[in-house]
């Protein structure tokens, strides 16, 4: 599904080169729920950014279903192959919840039903956002509701790979549990591959595979 091949990433910090990912090789299977754990500053978010096509590795390749994502075009890869859920939700605040979903649907080149608005309402409802809330502006929704909208947006463009970066980091424990269930459900009900970067042991315990990033290398736990 997704293969990392000798991925290395470093940056210049105070004139010194600092390598945070060193020759990482890993292959993610389809339809599984992965969590990536590791201490702060270990490079979890950087790794997620690279496999999500938000940044480029210094060296090495990322393959999606055997194709180099760089050759696919990173924008095209992000638009048509993956969905991303951020800790800060990253929804457009001058749009309503349902409009944020429509935005993702209208931008993808994947096949999307013509009655976009109805599909978006239905999708949001599946994640607990009823129509009256779906028509609200984003900043009129709670944090948990916004994250649900963000997850709905991630899968709205009919992709099969979902990335999430600390998706429960800004949520209370109760809401965190609900969101994790949704992620878990994405693999079962929607047959998505989910890769979540987290500090939360609650989240990692529910995943199919737990990976640990430390000392610039990625390993199974």
């Amino acid at each position, binding site marked *: 599904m997704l293969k990392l091949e000798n991925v290395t990433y470093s940056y210049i910090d105070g004139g010194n080169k600092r390598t945070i990912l060193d020759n990482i090789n890993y292959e993610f299977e389809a339809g599984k729920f992965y969590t990536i754990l590791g201490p702060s500053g270990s490079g979890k978010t950087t790794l997620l950014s690279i496999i*999500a096509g938000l940044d480029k590795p210094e060296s090495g390749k990322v393959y999606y279903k055997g194709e180099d994502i760089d050759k696919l075009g990173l924008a095209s890869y992000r638009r048509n192959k993956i969905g991303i859920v951020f800790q800060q939700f990253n929804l*457009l605040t001058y749009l309503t919840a349902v409009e944020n979903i429509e935005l993702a649907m209208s931008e993808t080149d994947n096949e999307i039903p013509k009655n976009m608005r109805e599909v978006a309402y239905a999708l949001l409802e599946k994640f607990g956002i009823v129509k009256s809330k779906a028509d609200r502006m984003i900043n009129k929704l709670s944090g948990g509701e916004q994250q649900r909208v963000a997850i709905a947006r991630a899968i709205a463009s009919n992709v099969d790979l979902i990335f999430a970066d600390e998706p429960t980091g800004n949520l209370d424990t109760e809401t965190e549990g609900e969101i994790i269930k949704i992620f878990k459900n994405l693999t079962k009900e929607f047959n998505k591959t989910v890769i979540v970067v987290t500090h939360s042991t609650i989240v990692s315990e529910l995943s199919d595979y737990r990976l640990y990033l430390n000392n610039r290398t990625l390993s199974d736990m």
Partner: protein
Amino acid sequence: MNFFNRAIKNISRLKSKSVLLIFTFLLIGNLVIIGLGISYASENAKKLTRQKMKPVVTYEVDYVAFQDWVEGLTPEEQEQAWNEYPQITKADFDKLVDSEYVEIVNALLTYEAYAGNFTPIIKENPDDGDIIVYEEREIAKDEYVYVERNIKLIGNAYENMIEINDGKYVVNQGRFYTQAEIDSNAKVAIIEERLAASNNLTVGDYITVDLIGENSYESEYLGDLETTIEYEIIGIYTNNTVLNEEDSWMERYPAYLPENAILVPSTSIAEMLVAVNTAAWDYYKEMWPDEPYYQDDANMPSEDSFYNTFVMLLNDPLNVERFVEDSADSLPRFTKLNANDELFQKFAKPLDTMSLFASIIVWIVVINAVVIISLVTALTMKTREHEIGILLSMGVSKFKVVSQLFTELAIVAVIGFSLAVLSGSMMAKGIGQAVLDYQLANTETDDDYYYYDDTYFTEITQEDMMSEYEVSVNPVIIGEIYLMGMGVVLVSILIPSYMIMRFNPKKILTNTY
């Protein structure tokens, strides 16, 4: 939800930002409209005045330039220079005529002569003194008699005349001469209807004209040279020239009366004049063998040197300036094309000054607008970095992101400029007139006499020109302001967009660039 829908939602839902930008565009738009309005009105007043002027250009010796040049020479050089006073030649003129703008050409050889086998018209009761028909006076020797010339031969080297085009001369019977007749020195003439009537002349009759008077001093060197030309009348015309009060003195001189003007091919006169002047040349060459002028064959009389008026009627008054500019480089030294510009430019001076200032203001405003709008946009974009990062992280193309930002600002600009068109058009009229009044009151006036030849040029006054000045916001200005506005919007979007979007989405979202 495409970029256009997003742009609309952004404008309508973030109202305070949109209103602020609309207000900015409104202010800028007003300044540009006033500037452009004044500039256009000035140019338009000149254009309309120019259109009312006959598109006539004369080819003349540039006496002022020659005089200035001579003044810078040593006394010996000055004497030499005056001997070589610049001359307009028909050959040089013919080169100018070969232009797409030139419609009708007068290369005139005008010569006052004596009626032969017919009687010229004589004004019976001239307003200004006695009729001058015969005036005897001593010339060089007592035995020679000067007899006042009583007809005028007007010869053109081209087969049409500006006067015919203007309706000043109307051929009633017969026809005008052809280019073939000009080229073959044909002795054909078109005479004035009153002259024809008083002499019972009609098309097909012959008249004789003497170039040199009997017993004149010229007979000393002419010998047996025949100076009478016999013309066949091929046409009869009406000369609508009216002698005004200032020209009433001409009534005393039959040769100046419109009735006695006979139209002939210029070559028919030139041929004879060359013969007469060659006889004189030979005579004086023999008389003054030491005079260098007569030893130089280049000074021998030629047909070219007898032409005295060169005028071109162009196809459009608006082509006059271009024609004069285009031809400037090919003119021989100390010759010029005169389009009655001196007077026109003098009257247009206040308009030119206003137009210049208005254009400068427009450019200053436009440059400032780019800076102001770019800064406002850059500040707005700073608050939208995160949004841009989100859109890019979703795979939205940079082109679509820029398109959305452009559309937002363009819609706001169109609203601002549309309001500016309404308010600006009201202000521009008042401000434009106030500026013109101030400019007229403060433009130095001089009492220089500007000569213009009303035979061909149209009389204009500063009042005529100023009456054409009317500031209004026309579709061209509206089009320009929208075009300019879109240019400003595009530039002010592209620069800050590039500054942000050159980084990858991760850096934009985490604000770590």
